[in-house]
């Protein structure tokens, strides 16, 4: 087990290297000169443009730029934003708290709703309960998140006055964004849980368990859920990564500073060091989450051994 863990952790290094190289190349392939973006519609002479380009370090050969970044990253220095000179690490760090808070809360919503709806609909298959649960799931899949967010604000903030509109600082500011973000994920999860549970529900070992006279709740919890959960846990893990880094719309609508929004803004401004820093962070999150998911397989299915 420990050996497996060490191997997986070592594998993160080439993965991160590959991610950083890919992002670096992609950023340089798409059109747009960061110095021109920096000035935007401000009047600027060609000399001044060149001067700023040099200050941004863009005059150096691409390879030199990349290895400089890499060298810095190894020392724990991700460089500074080329637009406002803020250390990248500080920019990312200042948003991690808010992003993590939102992602975890949304994960709880998604997990709770998704598992609940999926399970109920599978266990009450072909009844009105099943239809209703799947209708809610269908709503979640089809509903654009910005619309749901706007409706939540309208009903719960403006009309009922229950929760503040904009969201950071205080759990009460987390409820609406977490629900908006989590509800959409919960729909996918609910459908997956339903089909996975249905698949397991008629397996011979479940029938055997029932025939031994075990209570239905015990059958479901011990024999159905555990076996149905391998696929579900994989998807949940991936969703946690998405919730952490891909919550741009939710962050924008509820005015929460977050890693997703930081990354999009940095890409639009072609702020190379900032994009690289943020992407490395997100990649790291995905790697860790995937590792945790893989380790959880052993708990769910004792036949799986990491050797």
């Amino acid at each position, binding site marked *: 087990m420990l050996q497996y863990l060490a191997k997986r952790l070592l594998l993160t290094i080439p993965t991160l290297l590959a991610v950083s190289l890919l992002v670096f190349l992609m950023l340089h392939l798409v059109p747009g000169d960061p110095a*021109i973006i920096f*000035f935007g*519609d401000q*009047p600027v002479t*060609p000399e001044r443009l060149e001067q700023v380009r040099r200050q941004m370090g863009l005059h150096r050969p691409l390879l030199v730029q990349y290895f400089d970044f890499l060298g810095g990253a190894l020392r724990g220095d991700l460089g500074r934003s080329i637009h*406002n000179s803020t250390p990248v690490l500080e920019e990312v760090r200042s948003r991690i708290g808010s992003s993590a808070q939102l992602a975890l809360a949304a994960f709880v919503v998604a997990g709770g709703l998704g598992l609940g709806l999926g399970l109920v609909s599978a266990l009450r298959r072909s009844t009105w309960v099943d239809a209703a649960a799947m209708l809610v799931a269908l709503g979640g899949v089809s509903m654009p998140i910005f619309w749901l967010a706007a409706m939540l604000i309208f009903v719960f*903030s403006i009309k009922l006055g229950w929760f503040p*509109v*904009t969201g950071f600082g205080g*759990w009460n500011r987390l409820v609406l964004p977490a629900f908006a973000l989590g509800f959409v994920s919960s729909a996918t999860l609910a459908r997956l849980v339903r089909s996975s549970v249905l698949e397991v529900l008629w397996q011979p070992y479940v029938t055997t368990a029932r025939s031994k006279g075990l209570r239905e709740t015990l059958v479901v919890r011990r024999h159905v859920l555990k076996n149905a959960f391998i696929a579900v846990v994989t998807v949940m893990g991936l969703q946690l990564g998405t919730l952490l880094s891909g919550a741009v719309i939710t962050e924008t609508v509820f005015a929460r500073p977050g890693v997703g929004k930081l990354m999009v803004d940095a890409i639009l401004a072609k702020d190379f060091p900032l994009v690289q820093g943020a992407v490395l962070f997100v990649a790291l999150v995905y790697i860790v989450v995937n590792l945790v998911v893989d380790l959880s397989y052993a708990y769910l299915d004792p036949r799986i051994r990491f050797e």
Partner: protein
Amino acid sequence: MERIRRREFLRRAGVTAGALAASQVVPRFANPRAAYAQAQATGTLTYGMAGGFDTLDVTTTTFTRVGRIGLHIVDPLVWSTGAGQYAPGLATSWTISPDATVYTFKLREDVKFHDGTPFNAEAVKVTFDRIVDPETRAQTAFSFIGPYDRTEVVDRYTVRVRFKSGHAAFLNGASSPYLGIVSPTAVQRYGRDFGRVVFVGTGPFMLQSYRTDAEVRLIRNPNYNWGARIFKHEGLPYLQNIVYRIVPEEATRLATLETGETLFIEDVPVTDYQRLKSTRDKVLLEIPQGGSGWSLMMNQTRPPMNELPLRRAIMHAIDKDGLVRTVWNSIHRPACSPLTRVMFGFDQETCTKVPYNPDQARRLLEEAGWRTGPDGIRARGNERLRLEFYLQPTPQKNQEMAAFVQANLRQVGIDVNLNVLARAGYLDAVRQGRHHIQYWWDTGTDPGQMLRILFHSRNAGGGTNRNNYRNADMDRLIEQIEATADPARRKELIVRAQQKVIDEAVMVYLTDPPSLYAHDRSVSGVWVDWGGNYPYFYDTRIQR
């Protein structure tokens, strides 16, 4: 045994989490009345700002929003009270040489920066020298300071600013937040962190905290006793705190005003204009914007845009009244010239020069040899009359206006292809001159600077003059405007410049927008500069 422990653990965890959630959520339900009472009791004005920005340092930023915040932290040398009118700020009096190359300011002697550094001529020199230092990478301030040569400290409270050529617009620049005076001690002490972590001026409010992309908190300067005479009171500001909260989504921003989370918002959505106007407990501030308004630049280096009859036909073919009604709910006004109506030297006659007349547009195109084809699009020989319109996807109105212009031009036989590109690709394309048409919109209060940005040949070929219009007479005219301090003569030159660019059909002027702000009725005493850009809360109170 183990199973029981786990179940018990989960139960307890569930109960704890539930209790925690309930205790946190239930007592904090949003309540506008409570929010107003709290705002009044603490003297805190919360401002809903439409987006983030690069730095808090007004001398290096490119964002108007930073100017809005910064005007509370720094004091300008002078205040602008109307087009071409100035009142004392940190400078008590000033003289200008006839050729507008030398400005001498007498400074107040009772002013201190937030960090205790005394304000004097040296501080002015440090601020201005720093703006032109390439290391600073100043942007807006750099264009405001113009052909700056040097600053001389005449005595402790007298300063002389010299320019390499006439710079009649310097007082306008000096009245903006961007040339506000910053603490030389703090600049030296904090280096790259100045504006990022700390920002120190002499203004009525001091920076308390700054959370990037989220919130800026200002606190009252307890020593402030040098407010300008143009305001209603002297001494300390009434407010204790101003909190600028960044709320990019416009519907959310409006919602925060309705729930009391903010008491003042900027960039009110046009779609909510009427509703807000008729709401009793909200006040809508509508200030005609200074600057160049919304317009279209026509790139003369990309054929067939180099042809005057085509450009003139386009000017005649666009129904500005219709555009204002359809896209802007009649809140904007149809534009006449490259300067909006409130600008110094605006020429009223330009409003009748190029009326909407699609028949005239068709005639001009026929005369130029463009014949209507079977699909309604004109062609000359093998050349189809198709124009490339480059625009950015946001704001949403960009696309709505483009669709309107496209429909108008199609009626006279011009095919317009819309190229909607994200900022990086867009700037690349238009700076390289790949466009026939692109938008322009700019706010500002100096006509000379506006005309230079749009029409001076030094800004053509990749700069801001994306008409790529090069005309030596126009260059001279702009330089004369910039070097003429005499208001009557200056006005005459500005009128001539406007008429010239309309005669030569350089741009299409679409709409003159207002700046739209809204606040709760409990807020009073908001001052906004005449250009509509900087709401200022020195005189502001919150009283329900």
